[in-house]
């Protein structure tokens, strides 16, 4: 399409080359020289994404190898591997990383288990006129605000004092609450990011022709077999796309962890605490964990077709 368009526009520019006007002159410049147009379009975004963003990430990675001045706590440019050795060589840090990956995986799995049946009902079983309202209802909470929802969950889980005095919603209405801790963190993060899982799965199911499911049924497959052999394989890209958000947003979180996690620590808490210490090089060494984990994760889900379903 691009080439044809260029040629057509080039022709019109030549035909109109007798005309004047700044717009016309600019158009001629761009269309006679497609590279000029491309350069103009790309220079801004590339300057930003490569120089500012990737540049910052690169500097961050390098600064993990800097030492820190003992008196001023400022990073110096003297190189050392001590920070990375400390991060890799301390048992407690490994536990935190494993805990973070476990929490992010649990959130992703729980979101999947909740989103799949719901998206299936909305996309394939609900009356056509109800579909749109249902899916909008599922996405509206995304607009309510991260902190509002995190604190709302605090109001749900609040255990109160001894005997449940001053307890939150669960304690007051049901008489039982998991209290603050790792369970509350997983449930709250799932609550926060669930719509990001529902949306791509719903879109994927919506694209799936219903006749395909009927055909599977006609060939004698029971609903569970149809789900496993027809629906699930076709939904892999959509699930992978949704999982980027549920996994990544949970992996780096430290604010929800502070709000409902009690003493729970995830990798984000380590980074924040070290940065405030202040020990910038050590904090940078900690950020290598989420960077490496997420890039590996992205490479895997890209193979599964996640980026086409984003």
């Amino acid at each position, binding site marked *: *399409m*691009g080439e044809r*368009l260029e040629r*057509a*526009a080039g022709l019109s*520019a030549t035909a*109109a080359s007798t005309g004047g006007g700044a717009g*016309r002159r600019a*158009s001629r410049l761009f269309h006679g020289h497609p590279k000029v147009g491309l350069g103009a*379009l790309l220079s*801004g*975004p590339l300057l930003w*994404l490569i120089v*500012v*963003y990737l540049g*910052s990430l690169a*500097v*961050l990675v390098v600064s993990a190898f800097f030492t820190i001045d003992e008196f001023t706590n400022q990073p110096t440019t003297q190189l050392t591997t001590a920070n990375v050795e400390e991060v890799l060589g301390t048992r407690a840090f490994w536990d935190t990383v494993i805990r973070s990956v476990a929490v992010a995986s649990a959130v992703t799995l729980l979101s999947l288990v909740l989103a799949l049946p719901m998206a299936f009902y909305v996309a394939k079983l*609900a009356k056509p006129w109800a579909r749109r309202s*249902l899916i909008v*209802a599922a*996405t*509206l*909470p*995304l*607009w309510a*605000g*991260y*902190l*509002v929802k995190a*604190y*709302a*969950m605090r109001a*749900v889980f609040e255990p109160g004092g001894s005997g449940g005095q*001053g*307890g*939150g919603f669960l*304690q007051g209405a049901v008489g039982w609450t998991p209290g603050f801790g790792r369970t509350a963190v997983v449930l709250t993060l799932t609550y926060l990011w*669930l*719509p990001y899982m529902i*949306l*791509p799965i*719903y*879109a994927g199911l919506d694209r799936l022709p219903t006749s395909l499911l009927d055909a599977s049924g006609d060939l004698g*497959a029971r*609903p569970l077999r149809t789900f496993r052999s027809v629906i699930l394989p076709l939904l892999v890209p959509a699930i992978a796309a949704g999982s980027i958000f549920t996994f990544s947003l949970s*992996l*780096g*979180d*430290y604010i929800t962890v502070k709000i409902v996690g009690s003493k729970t620590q995830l990798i*984000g808490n380590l*980074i924040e605490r070290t940065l405030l210490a202040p020990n910038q090089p050590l904090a*940078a060494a900690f950020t290598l964990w*989420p*960077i490496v984990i*997420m890039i590996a994760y*992205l490479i895997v889900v890209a193979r599964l077709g996640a*980026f086409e*379903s*984003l």
Partner: protein
Amino acid sequence: MNLSGASYWALRVFTWMVLGLLYLPLAIIVILSFNTATSLSWPPDGLWLDWWRKAAAADAPRDALWTSVKLALASTGVALVLGTCLSFALARYRFFGRSSLSFLVVLPIALPGIVTGVALRNTFLRLGWDLGFRTVVLGHGTFCIVLAFNNVIARLRRMAPNVQEASADLGAHGMQTFRLVTFPLIRSALLAGGLLAFALSFDEIIVTTFTAGAGVETLPQWILNNFARPNNVPLVTVVATVVMLLSIPLAWLAQRLTGEPTGLGAGR
């Protein structure tokens, strides 16, 4: 596929249960905003409009709201310009590194906010810049680009190339074609991407924390700071309720514009 009546009802009940769970905590916050006590305990001690009156008189949340709106508008502007340029380049040209660019644009939103935040903070400080409103715009703009990009490129890919050829055949030069043909066709995609970018920037807290200096307080920061003070908890629930009410028309508009439920331009 022949689902039995029981499975149909099971899925139906499950769906409504999940929806109920999504709204229950929000309902609790709204109800607590009418609470007379200063805690999050349930049931509320008594209901009154006290805190609504106090919130209406408070300056700090209003200032923070205004900061957040300005910030979100600036970041959205940056994201729209850069995202649109990038989507035109990718939709219309073939060039070296083209496929890695679509990976690169997703990266700022796929890496945890704390990584983006710490990386940018580090760079800004090393460059000797003062952390403030401008550095937060830079931070938010970085992860908002993908929203404008996703929406515009989806529209460009669906657009028939012959409309532009027709425009050229009728004697329009490139700028006229853009103004009269291409732009009207992508306008709603820009608006949808812009709304999503606005919402994401308005809600962002982690990148803000690391790229803002002491002089900037956004609404999420105000909420975070005030929930820690027990006496201000009901005030925060009032502000939270107001923000929720304000976001409903925006969400509705974004949904109308894309014709699809909108997350991150998901589903195209």
